[in-house]
């Protein structure tokens, strides 16, 4: 086995066969999933369960009260839930259509959303309605609201036969359902208990507002005579659904918000994969080179192999590390797309391009890292020299949005030919939905390969001089001198 491969093998083993690496590689997606789950759970978490009554002073002559009563009754709540569930199913169906999911997955997603909705509904506060006389004094009736202790733990353990706490007092004036001189309806007032959860406040006013709207419609002389019920009017007001289709030379494709999102998410995913695998290998290359230098093992190695063999071996070893990460993560990505039957979103050719641009980006970055690692003695000395690498890592993040929106703009084409950025820019463009001119693919690959070769050549020069230099860390000017030396 050639010596270079021995170096590569050691580099790979000493990087991968550590607890830190294994935990890090497995943990990154696990942390992501856990964090996502935590956000979902947390958003479903209700505040302290608030149970209590809502008092209503209806001054409209009893026009609003029945509607409010209905919306606070079990029957009304059940009807509302049914309506929501239907709307949700409809949305999901449309989403599933857009993704082209089959029936099995459609049912699966529907089941998940139903159970989520049921859980959300379970947290709806138990509210009872108390109708107060029309001439009740709002100031006097506010007193129980003021006295309510919404978040007081002792309040929750009050005797079961105790009267419910008053969480809110609503006062609906006649103007709320009849227009004034300016043709506008007047407002109504709700007084909430201190620290009452915002969602509960919204729920209360939503129910009352809906009842008021119903009352307006019913009391309007124009509907009183006719046959238009409030439900009819709501139905009339509902915006129609749009079925947009994009017409291309290949045929028609449905347009939806979701394809737009995936059109953005997939390029980001590809860029992320590329960046993660390149940077992990590159970072390890920097660390191990600095370690070999600072632990003075370098000269021992150089008695057996040439600097070039050492550098090439190390780069190959870390390339294998990068490829491992690329394989594991992209494998996980492809597997989850297959499970969800969304594999049609993935162009197999893009996986090939991912590999090609990984190699280009990796050799470029690795050359930089090897050169920097050889030139410094400590990690912190490397920071200033890392600036160009960091720029190449940060810029794609800033650019990913504008590039995926206009993948064929002139400036994007120009960026595709800038060494360092070119693999990332091209990956974003290739993974997007808009095809790019065919000539640009081989041309940018050629630019990438040439730049990587130049970087490797310069790195070899710096490496040869740098590995035995101790003391003051060099700046870019010194590095340039080393490159021109010999």
């Amino acid at each position: 086995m050639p010596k270079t491969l021995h170096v590569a093998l050691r580099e790979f083993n000493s990087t991968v066969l550590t607890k830190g690496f294994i935990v890090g590689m497995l943990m990154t997606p696990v942390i992501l999933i856990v964090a996502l789950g935590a956000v979902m759970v947390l958003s479903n978490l209700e505040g302290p369960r608030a149970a209590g009554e809502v008092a209503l002073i209806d001054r409209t002559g009893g026009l609003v009260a029945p509607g409010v009563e209905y919306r606070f009754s079990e029957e009304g709540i059940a009807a509302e839930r049914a309506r929501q569930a239907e709307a949700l199913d409809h949305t999901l169906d449309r989403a599933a259509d857009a993704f082209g999911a089959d029936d099995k997955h459609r049912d699966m997603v529907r089941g998940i959303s139903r159970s989520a909705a049921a859980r959300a509904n379970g947290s709806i506060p138990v509210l009872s309605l108390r109708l107060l006389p029309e001439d009740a004094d709002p100031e006097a009736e506010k007193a129980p609201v003021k006295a309510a202790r919404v978040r007081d733990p002792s309040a929750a353990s009050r005797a079961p036969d105790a009267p419910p706490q008053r969480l809110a007092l609503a006062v609906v004036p006649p103007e709320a359902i009849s227009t004034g001189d300016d043709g506008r309806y007047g407002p109504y007032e709700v007084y909430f208990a201190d620290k009452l959860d915002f969602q509960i406040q919204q729920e209360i006013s939503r129910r009352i507002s809906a009842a008021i709207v119903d009352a307006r419609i019913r009391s309007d002389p124009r509907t009183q005579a006719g046959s238009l019920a409030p439900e009819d009017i709501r139905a009339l007001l509902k915006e129609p659904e749009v079925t947009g289709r994009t017409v291309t030379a290949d045929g028609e494709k449905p347009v939806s918000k979701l394809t737009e999102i995936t059109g953005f998410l997939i390029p980001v995913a590809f860029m992320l994969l590329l960046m993660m695998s390149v940077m992990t290998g590159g970072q390890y290359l920097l660390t191990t080179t600095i370690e070999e230098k600072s632990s003075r093992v370098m000269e021992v190695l150089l008695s057996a192999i040439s600097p070039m063999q050492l550098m090439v071996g190390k780069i190959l070893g870390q390339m294998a590390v990068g490829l491992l990460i690329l394989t594991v993560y992209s494998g996980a990505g492809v597997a989850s797309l297959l499970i969800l039957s969304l594999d049609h979103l993935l162009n197999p050719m893009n996986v090939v391009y991912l590999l090609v641009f990984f190699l280009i980006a990796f050799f470029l970055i690795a050359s930089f890292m090897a050169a920097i690692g050889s030139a410094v003695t400590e990690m912190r000395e490397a920071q200033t020299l890392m600036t160009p690498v960091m720029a190449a890592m940060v810029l794609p993040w800033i650019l990913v949005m504008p590039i995926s929106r206009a993948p064929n703009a002139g400036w994007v084409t120009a960026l595709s030919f800038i060494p360092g950025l070119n693999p990332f820019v091209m990956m974003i463009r290739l993974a997007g939905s808009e095809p790019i001119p065919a000539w640009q693919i081989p041309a940018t690959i050629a630019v990438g390969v040439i730049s990587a070769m130049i970087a490797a050549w310069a790195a070899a020069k710096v490496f040869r001089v740098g590995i035995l230099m101790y003391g003051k860390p060099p700046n870019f000017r010194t590095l340039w001198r080393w490159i021109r030396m010999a």
Partner: protein
Amino acid sequence: MTDAIVIDGLTKSFGPKLAVDNLSLRVPAGTVCGFIGPNGAGKTTTIRMIMSIIFPDRGDIRVLGRASAVESKDRIGYLPEERGVYRKMKVGAFLAYMARLKGVDSRGLRPKIRHWLDRVGLADAEKKRCEDLSKGMQQKIQFLAAILHEPDLLILDEVFSGLDPVNRRLMRELIDEQHRMGRTIIFSTHTMYEAEQLCDRVFMIHHGRKVLDDSMRDILARFDPRSVLVEPMHEEDLDALARVEGVAGVVRGVGAGLRSRVYEARLDERVDVAQAMARIAAALPVRRIELKRVSLEDVFIDLVQRSGERAPSRAELGADSELGAAEEEAALNA
């Protein structure tokens, strides 16, 4: 006898500093050569050039009959001055890695590593991480890394530094063992004791120039101090010693401590040494009389002084050589 290393007109400068200046030397195959010189004399630079780790500005180096060490790296064992180990690597794995880099077949490598670890008293270290070993232990590991591939040429840069007396002796034995196996060994040191003990031949460089290149025997003969060490039975006989024919002067013996009763009788240039010694023995009763042998240390100091430098004081050198030896004896007897 062929030469393991031939250096011709070697010159290397770092910026304005001339590190090695037109150096030529030959290392005959199968010999142990000491490479001595004060700190900063250019020893490590020369060795690095021999190893093709850095390249000379001018001059030729032939190693083991090849144009450079690059072509014969697998036949050379090298212990650099700047040496280290992979801290997190296990000792056995580190040695196996170094051996494989030197082209050793992995078959039979493990038992061999175990054998050598046992030989240097680190039998239990195979599964330990390198960072868990002391510096001296690490140095022995590095020595093993240099010899595991059974090289024809062994280059050891400052191999004795940082070793305790017991391990110094072990290292001398190991080097001697390698020598008896027919290997050419070149080691640099600035401690004279080991050089004197081990070397067939000594090179000395100073300010990048060669100031000494000779076999040990010839050096000692050439730097014959023409002195007789005398320890009289009675101190009052000193006058008699000074009056002996051929004795040019008497000084209190140096290097043997302040309470020494050994005196050094310098002899005239023309006097026959054997006859003079007989005359001294006849002139006064002596506890001890011997011909003073030059030590490499004397040569070292003499050469450095001759080049107009402040020589390292005896105390500085003594700390490394004689005291080192005494300390070693004490440690071994304990």
